[in-house]
């Protein structure tokens, strides 16, 4: 019997209910120990010396003075690192995809390539001593010309960021289907636009932190805020240790959003603890986090879109150029997401996408919520708006007419096998805006905008993704789950409790979970790519279903009936005619007759081989989540100031495991997207970061955003447990385009550059009024 069938029989108990999360109680009662809250006896403080130059040679690096300071226990440079290379292919993944492998140095060797690059490490008896040691390290730099713009980086003669490569081009992807030139020539209307997005930061409230120690069994143990406990392998490789001698214990995170996906403090901690043989703690300051951590890729996107009078899309030509910063990290993959979703959730028969990502001496860019599938929304949804206006069509109508359906093919050739909720999400979001409200004052104009998107959930199928989990009964009938899932704050762990509780009929307060320990919880892969509900959710579902079968088989013997007849409910197992046996008794019997009281299961996602996109490929992603956001904004025609007055975000989540968590993801994601649209910006001046504090890098406060109205659709067709789809990343995509479209609707200004700044809107309005610049 499938899990869903079981549920249909017994009725749903906790799945689909907005039950409070167990970790919420721990957090309000201050029981959750985040990475920086942990201490060990005899602990040292670790710190990183970072380059202040975006591009320079290291002429001299002298640590003598620092090493000789009393209280300074270790000072390490690249020479002290056994293997100074970190391979940043796909974190935690066992299948390698060759060309996507990229390397960074743990510590800079002969040159630095971005401001903030790690140069040396110290460990000292106190924070102040560690800081003094950093000041005592003597570094002499010889600045060399850098390159700070991806277009310039591609021009002949540009300084090479990595002198061992022939050019600054890091990766290129193309998608080809049909005949774009011909179709554009035959189109009734062609709209064109160039769109630019900015560097932004994850800006989670918890800075990177961890504590490492060598345990009594000689195992290097690192307790760290990470989205990827599988980085234990990277630490082991750097130290030249067998993988089984390094253990990563992941903490509950104070936010990740992709920023704690690449290695942060763990390798530094591993080195310092291994060398000093003492516990070491490292906590990055906010300045350090904003200075040195990889950002979201800025994109330049050139679009040409052709349609017939009827509104039918016939062709789209796309050029994408992204800034990788100084090291590759996950840039090639981010660009792949962008190029394969560049046409959005629409049927476009003729497509040409050319995408490039380029090294510069800017801060590196890597994973961030939305992972390349979100910058393109800003472009393709403004193209749709331009078309609707050109054709005099209703914006919802145009999208519904062109929306993908189940069974359609994406331009990459992937066939959509599950429900595509495009018409519903677009209509629902737009309708929920309600009747238009008049402007709240003179000089103010009101406008509305819509934007739809599709976001993959789960990893690229080439990676043959899998996750495993263990579920068991204790002798008192309580349930324990072990799963190597980092919980970034989105409720990953508690969703797994709901799933197991549902299948086993055990109330949630009798279910507990251990997550995120590379030594003690079955590995489950990264908490990224909106994959954990699908991956670990399915693994837990399988394990729990198997466990249920074991237990019911034994109970059936005790009750002299067949397992199918039985109901497992909290404390007892019952027959339809009212006979019952206690769960504890059944578990004892299991032990006596040697039937397992636990189950371990692995879920393998749909797999595939790398495809040649050039010649049309096939499946790249397991599945997608579809959404639409609608907003009403008010624009001040004198200052250009924009206020978001109403905001609706609608997504098909397949099946909400916990509706409250789903709403929270939608609201939080949309607000992150509104920040991206209106205020967030890492400002770089020739690679020098001008926004290294929360007073200069601004994220939305409660005063900057309205209450996002979440609309949850449940098609039941996702690939997760009970038909769920992932919802972590999807809501961050549409806001920028929805707001830009609303600004156009309000004042007739087409904003093509993020963030949408009031100065730019005011200037455009001034020019529209017939003044010149």
């Amino acid at each position: 019997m499938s899990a869903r069938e079981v549920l249909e029989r017994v009725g749903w108990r906790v799945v689909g209910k907005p039950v409070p999360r167990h970790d919420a109680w721990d957090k309000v009662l201050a029981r959750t120990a985040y990475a920086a809250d942990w201490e060990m006896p005899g602990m040292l403080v670790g710190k990183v010396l970072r380059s202040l130059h975006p591009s320079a040679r290291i002429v001299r690096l002298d640590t003598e003075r620092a090493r000789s300071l009393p209280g300074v226990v270790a000072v390490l440079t690249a020479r002290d690192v056994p293997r100074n290379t970190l391979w940043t292919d796909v974190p935690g993944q066992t299948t390698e995809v060759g060309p996507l492998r990229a390397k960074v140095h743990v510590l800079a060797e002969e040159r630095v390539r971005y401001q903030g690059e790690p140069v040396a490490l110290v460990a000292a008896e106190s924070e102040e001593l560690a800081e003094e040691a950093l000041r005592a390290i003597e570094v002499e730099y010889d600045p060399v010309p850098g390159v700070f713009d991806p277009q310039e980086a591609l021009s002949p003669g540009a300084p090479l960021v990595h002198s061992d490569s022939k050019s600054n081009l890091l990766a290129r992807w193309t998608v080809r289907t049909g005949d774009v030139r011909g179709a554009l020539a035959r189109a009734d209307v062609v709209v064109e636009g160039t769109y630019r997005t900015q560097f932004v930061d994850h800006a989670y409230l918890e800075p990177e932190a961890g504590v490492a120690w060598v345990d009594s069994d000689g195992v290097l143990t690192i307790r760290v805020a990470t989205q990827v406990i599988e980085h234990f392998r990277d630490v082991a490789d750097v130290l030249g240790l067998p993988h089984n001698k390094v253990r990563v214990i992941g903490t509950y995170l104070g936010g990740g959003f992709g920023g704690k996906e690449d290695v942060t403090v763990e390798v530094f901690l591993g080195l310092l603890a291994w060398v000093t043989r003492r516990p070491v703690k490292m906590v990055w300051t906010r300045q350090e986090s904003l200075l040195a951590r990889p950002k979201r890729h800025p994109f330049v996107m050139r679009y040409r879109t052709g349609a017939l009078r009827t509104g039918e899309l016939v062709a789209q030509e796309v050029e994408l150029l992204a800034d990788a910063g100084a090291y590759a990290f996950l840039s090639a993959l981010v660009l792949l997401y962008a190029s394969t979703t560049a046409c959005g959730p629409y049927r476009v028969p003729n497509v040409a996408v050319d995408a490039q990502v380029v090294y510069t001496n800017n801060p590196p860019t890597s994973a961030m919520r939305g992972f390349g599938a979100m910058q393109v929304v800003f472009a393709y949804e403004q193209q749709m708006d331009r078309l609707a206006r050109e054709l005099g069509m209703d914006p919802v109508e145009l999208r519904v007419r062109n929306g993908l359906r189940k069974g359609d093919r994406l331009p990459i050739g992937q066939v959509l096998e599950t429900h595509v909720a495009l018409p519903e999400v677009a209509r629902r979001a737009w309708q929920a805006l309600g009747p238009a409200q008049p402007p709240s004052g003179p000089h103010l104009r009101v406008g509305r905008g819509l934007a739809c998107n599709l976001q993959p959930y789960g990893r690229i199928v080439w990676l043959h993704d899998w996750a495993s989990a263990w579920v068991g009964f204790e002798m008192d009938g309580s349930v324990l789950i072990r799963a190597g899932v980092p919980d970034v704050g989105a409720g990953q762990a508690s969703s797994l409790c709901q799933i197991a509780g549902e299948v086993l009929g055990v109330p949630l307060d009798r279910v507990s979970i251990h997550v995120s320990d590379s030594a003690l919880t079955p590995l489950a892969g990264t908490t990224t790519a909106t994959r954990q509900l699908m991956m670990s959710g399915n693994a837990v579902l399988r394990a729990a279903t198997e466990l249920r079968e074991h237990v019911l088989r034994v109970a059936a013997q005790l009750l002299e009936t067949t397992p199918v007849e039985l109901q497992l409910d909290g404390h007892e197992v019952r027959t339809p005619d009212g006979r019952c046996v206690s769960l504890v008794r059944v578990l004892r019997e299991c032990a006596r007759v040697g039937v397992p009281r636990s189950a371990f299961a692995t879920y393998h996602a749909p797999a595939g081989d790398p495809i040649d996109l050039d010649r049309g490929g096939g499946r790249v992603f397991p599945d997608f989540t579809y959404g639409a956001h609608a907003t009403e904004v008010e624009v001040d025609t004198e200052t250009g100031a924009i206020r978001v007055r109403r905001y609706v975000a609608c997504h098909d989540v397949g099946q909400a495991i916990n509706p409250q968590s789903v709403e929270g993801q939608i609201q939080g994601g949309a607000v992150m997207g509104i920040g991206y649209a209106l205020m967030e910006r890492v400002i770089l001046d020739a690679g020098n970061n001008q926004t290294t504090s929360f007073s200069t890098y601004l994220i939305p406060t409660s005063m900057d955003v309205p209450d996002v109205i979440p609309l949850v659709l449940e098609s039941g067709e996702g690939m997760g447990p009970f038909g769920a789809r992932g919802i972590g990343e999807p809501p961050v995509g549409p806001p920028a385009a929805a707001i830009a479209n609303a600004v156009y609707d309000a004042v007739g200004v087409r904003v093509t550059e993020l963030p949408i700044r009031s100065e730019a809107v005011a200037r455009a309005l001034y020019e529209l009024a017939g003044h010149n610049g």
Partner: protein
Amino acid sequence: MKERTRLSISFELNGSPRRIEVEAHRTLLSVLRDDLGTVDVKEGCDEGVCGTCTVLLDGRAVSSCLVLAPRVHGARITTLLGLSPDGRPHPLKEMFVRHGAVQCGFCTPGMVLTAYAFVRSHPQTTRQELRKALAGNLCRCTGYAKLLDAVEAYVREVCSVR
């Protein structure tokens, strides 16, 4: 390393008297976390912008990263842990849990304390006023709506019935 002025200070922390020696330049935040192990106070920026490190100083919400430790001599300090009358969770905490106002939870201690202090002095408050009152506490996860729901429910269901 230079010798620095050390001071002996005493204050009340979550209802218990404390006396410690601190260097005059230390912040309340670092003393609470590093010296007294009160790690329910979190550090988000250490420069007074994010509100994560909020504590109550004589009942007033302050950013503890901006308060020098000697300043609290003779004062009453309350952290999230101290907000549990008769050992039971404060009803405001219950509202945070019930309304899904806690995601990663890193902003939660500061957020709960700011909301608590504001509502105590504005028991008749509105959602718009709450929005303003919480503007100094950043949250990167929730989008604020559920936070406001939680505090509003507390105002409606708990404060006004008394």
